């Protein structure tokens, strides 16, 4: 967990004193959640829904929104209760909080978006055991004030959603020739159905993860180069 970095960026924002955090640190928290420690590609948490519901970009987006809701809600409530939850039974308490929010979003989606409810299937209630939610509760929300926990939940949720939509989009384009149900290549296109099948999910996920690893090592290499130059100039 890269919590050290996260809290570091926030204390910088607190210097302004008028706001608990400035726009600058909001952006850096978002960057942390989406790129630096992306829950799916870097921390490798929540792989089950990432593989299962990404048969289309639309499903992936719906799942992402549901997880954002649950993460923000549970992070906020757990952070508010952090002084009252005894540490021996904290995991059980977190699970109760999380499953309450999951039940709420499940009922909302069932009522208002029945199509999405059917295509997500049991993966909607399974957000309860999504490791991302419990990991953020344990590692962040239980130690930080409510607003920061809410923000962290949002950033991690967005990171999860970006990863899912990327995976779902690629699978939908290759496997069905559409994106968000818009036909991309015209009628004559024969899609490779392998990619909407389970095997394709694993393979695309592997390639995306390798791509992100490459990107991160490239960015870090660039940073290191800059630092080296700075040091050389200082010397």
């Amino acid at each position, binding site marked *: 967990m890269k919590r050290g970095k996260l809290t570091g960026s926030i204390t910088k924002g607190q210097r302004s004193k008028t706001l608990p955090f400035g726009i600058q640190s909001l952006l850096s928290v978002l960057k942390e959640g989406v790129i630096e420690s992306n829950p799916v590609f870097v921390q*490798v948490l929540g792989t089950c829904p990432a*593989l*299962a519901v990404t048969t289309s970009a639309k499903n992936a987006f719906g799942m992402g929104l549901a997880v954002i809701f649950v993460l923000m809600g549970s992070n906020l409530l757990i952070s508010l209760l952090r002084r009252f939850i005894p540490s021996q039974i904290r995991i059980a308490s977190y699970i109760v909080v999380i499953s*309450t929010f999951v039940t709420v979003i499940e009922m909302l989606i069932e009522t208002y978006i029945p199509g999405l409810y059917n295509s997500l299937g049991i993966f909607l209630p399974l957000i309860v055991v999504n*490791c991302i939610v419990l990991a953020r509760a344990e590692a962040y929300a239980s130690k930080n004030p409510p607003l920061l926990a809410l923000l962290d939940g949002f950033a991690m949720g967005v990171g999860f959603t970006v990863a899912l939509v990327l995976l779902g989009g690629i699978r939908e384009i290759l496997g069905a020739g559409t994106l968000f149900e818009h036909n991309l290549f015209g009628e004559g296109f024969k899609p490779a159905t392998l990619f909407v099948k389970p095997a394709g999910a694993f393979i695309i996920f*592997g*390639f995306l993860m*390798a791509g992100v690893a490459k990107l991160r090592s490239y960015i870090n290499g660039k940073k290191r180069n800059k630092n080296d130059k700075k040091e050389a100039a200082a010397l």
Partner: protein
Amino acid sequence: MTDILLLMFSVILIENFIFSRFLGCCPFLGVSEKPATALGMGFAVTFVMTLSSAVTYAVYHLILVPNKLEYFSTVVFILIIASLVQLIEMFMHKYIPALYSALGIYLPLITTNCAVLGAALINIRSKFSFIESVVFGFSAAIGFTLAIVIFAGVRERMAFADPPKAFRGLPIALVAAGLLAMAFSGFVGMSFS
């Protein structure tokens, strides 16, 4: 009887929990470095899943349905599974220490294994009977064990491979899992009717 056998085979091979339903991917990727540990994890999951399928079925039909509390099932099920795992752990520790020392470290991980909660939810949604639920839980776990042990064997071999730098570790393992899933998708053509 044949129905039960058919259910078992289709759950283990055709609708394999990992390769076709994507349930239990976290331990599948996390605890599959060596075949021996993978087997340990598989046994622990089988034990818990069979028991939890029975208990969640009983609680759902004897307590939740008569009181019209079906919408509460997710919360209740996850609590049942968590306490069941804790109970099994304490029981094993006291009475079967040999088994505890073999499976003990995997037990706490199972609470957040989505395969266990997934099986309980599928049992309810497919309107299975009690026997069918237990068989479903048991054979789904056997399918999980089969997948994770095969995959651990593959990964052990992969230690000697030399993929590009960005692919080292999990990415290449995922591609291998994709190839395995392709092999398993060959079973889809099988039909018993």
